[in-house]
């Protein structure tokens, strides 16, 4: 376990070094220094106040030193602390992605099972077609179409944002704002999970213990749900585990289309502005989550699958 932790820290450091070098070496530089009204002399002064005139390794070590002290630095483009900026945006992203993931799981599991047990019937074909559509539909297009239908034409749901500004911003209001973006966020995961669920169930249905269960004369639902589903869900842990980091990384496109104030959009803005501290902060957060999700996935197997043991 200690080895795994050490590996995780090493991965994080490598990611940060690579990101740091790439963003600093890319042509251009921070947007605040590249303005048609800013002279080169002035840009040089501004670069100095940002510490960008120092050698790259010195800059990296200074950044790392701050991170170890729990500070992620000050954003170039907004002059606010990166921790504050991320803290402001993280809750919105967790709500949206969390709702999306729950929706995806709740729908994908029964759809996958249905598809598997009715394999090669019209039900299976229908579910598979819908899943293929979900995997291939462009998110921005789907989002805009839903806005046009439900917000502009039918006026059932709001066109964007997290709540009615200056209005009754209670739970109900927030939920109506959440419906469309959460559905859009869930679509890809839903399609993916449905396909995985289907093949996982199909795989499990040919296992010996399922044949034994049939042979014992157990009722259909008992075989499907108690024997097949429980075991078929195991590999899903890996799939969901891989999706977890996305929870915090945010769904940049959905957030943009629905004007949702999340991390994904913050990351896009940071990248456009070449806001080094903000890019580094978000990268560090997301990579830490990937590493943590992988660890959690492994631990979940230890807990749920008696064949796996901690070494």
């Amino acid at each position: 376990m200690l080895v795994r932790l050490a590996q995780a820290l090493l991965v994080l450091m490598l990611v940060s070094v690579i990101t740091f070098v790439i963003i600093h070496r890319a042509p251009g530089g921070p947007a605040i220094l590249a303005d048609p009204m800013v002279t080169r002399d002035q840009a040089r002064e501004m670069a100095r106040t940002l510490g960008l005139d120092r050698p790259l390794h010195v800059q990296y070590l200074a950044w790392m030193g701050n991170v170890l002290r729990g500070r992620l630095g000050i954003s170039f483009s907004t002059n606010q602390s990166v921790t504050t900026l991320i803290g402001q945006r993280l809750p919105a992203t967790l709500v949206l992605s969390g709702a999306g993931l729950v929706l995806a799981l709740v729908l994908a599991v029964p759809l996958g099972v249905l598809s598997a047990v009715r394999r090669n019937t019209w039900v299976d074909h229908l579910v598979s077609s819908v899943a293929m559509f979900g995997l291939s539909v462009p998110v921005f297009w789907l989002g805009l179409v839903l806005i046009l239908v439900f917000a502009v034409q039918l006026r059932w749901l709001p066109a964007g944002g997290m709540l009615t500004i200056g209005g009754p911003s209670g739970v109900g209001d927030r939920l109506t704002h959440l419906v469309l973006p959460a559905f859009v966020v869930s679509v890809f995961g839903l399609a993916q999970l449905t396909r995985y669920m289907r093949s996982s169930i199909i795989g499990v249905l040919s296992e010996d213990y399922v044949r034994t269960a049939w042979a014992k004369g157990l009722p259909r639902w008992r075989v499907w749900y108690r024997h097949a589903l429980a075991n078929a869900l195991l590999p899903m842990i890996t799939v969901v585990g891989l999706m977890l980091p996305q929870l915090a990384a945010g769904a940049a496109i959905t957030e943009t289309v629905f004007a949702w104030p999340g991390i994904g959009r913050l990351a896009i803005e940071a990248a456009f502005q070449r806001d080094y501290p903000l890019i580094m902060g978000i990268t560090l957060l997301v990579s830490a989550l990937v590493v943590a999700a992988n660890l959690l996935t492994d631990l979940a197997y230890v807990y749920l699958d008696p064949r796996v043991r901690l070494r």
Partner: protein
Amino acid sequence: MTRAIRRRLLVPVLAVLAVTAGDSVGAQQRGGVLRVAVPTTPTGYVITQAGGLADVIIEKLFQNALTRYDEKTLQPIPNLATEWRAEDSARIWTFKLRAGVKWHDGKPFTAEDVKFTFDTIFNKDVRARMRGNMGPLERVEIVDPTTVRFTFKEPFAPFPVMVGYNAGIIPRHLLAGQDPNNPAEFLKKPIGTGPFRFKEAVAGSHVVLEANPDYWEGRPALDQVVLKVVPDVNAQIAQLKSGDLDLALIQPKNIAALEGDPNVAVTTARQVNYFYVALTNKDEIFADVRVRQALNYAVDKAAMIRAVLRGHGEVATGPISPVLGWAYTKDVRQYPYDVGRAKALLDEAGWRHGPEGVRQKGGKKLAVTLTTSKGVLDGEQLATVIQQYLQAVGVEAKINLVEFAHLWTGLFKGEFQASVEYLITPPDPDLFGALSCNAPLNRFSYCNPKVDVLLTQGRATPDLKARAAVYAQAQKELAEVPSGIYLYYPLEVRAMNRKFRGFPEMPLRDAFQHSAKFWLAR
């Protein structure tokens, strides 16, 4: 001279008063919330944030600059300053401040605040981008509590325009002693002297401003202005249609989506914005003025306006926009689309027909690389069209797409030979920094002694008529000896709630200087 300036100032002031009075007599209704689309979260701190649309708008809602712009002429008119005069060929500017103005926290606004603001802008440790707009300022002195004097190293006639350009005065009593780059405490609840007070901000979502009942111009008609962060233009259109937004800047290609909408009106306005191809004048191909002239004949600017802007633009005749009616002149050498003349000029310059239709001289091909960025509106499309026009006259053209920030830094470093770009400038014809020899912002490495003399003279001529005459000559010379390919002046396209009134027909960014007059019909 000084009296002449003051007299001319009176006219627009009276005009504004008349318009305000006309609106408020009976017609104007109080109340309502105006929701404006912005692409990013505004910060409310103009010193380090001037530039982005969100910050440009919020600055005008809750702050005041010394001057603002007349709705028709875009010339500076009183704001926090009531009058100003130039001395010593515009090397010294004295501003008289409005008395009785209060900050949103009730403290009085004084000359100390003005001095503090400019000292902060000129502090070398502060990342104030607008510093470059303010000319060679040497010192700011408080003459008396309502008079401030600015002394420059060189004459600087554009100053009254520049102090109105995203340069809201900041409160010394709250900001002195705070980190001028990141006044964290202040930003929790920023204040100004403007028509609206800061009420609430949710990062990434919106900022709510409410009417300032003690505003020196009188309480604004609107109860609130909400800046809604909606980064995607299609989402903005949807929110306009669904009634969730009242005002947004859109592009000509979006107009069709709003046509016939009973609640949304689309209007256009001239703006201080021009599109051009910057040609590096020291490049061995472009050093010959005949090549630069030829390329101006080779592109069909009117067709580009029709295709790219759906007709919402005017052919550019030089770097000064026609929105500056007093300074702009059309009476310059014109470059109509004329392939024959383009070819003749290239022949004359010694670029003869070579293999594969590409001209050459001394064995060298006439090859041009057009750099642009997706960050330049329609930049890629423009570059593609220009590429075809150039090929038609025997110029081989390649397109190089770069990041937006790279576009601005690369040209200065001489990395790009030609770039398709645009410039939004303050509403003043001053081009000294952009086109005089060796000027720090000369993107073209343009050097024309005649132009240099005129641009220097323009900065030393505060009298408007005399100044206009200087720039008329400069425009003639800049058309005769072009710095690049002047493409077009795009019109600004605004989509707004049909009930929204009192919005002047000036560029949107400047129109917010008059937000106290905005109102919503019931």
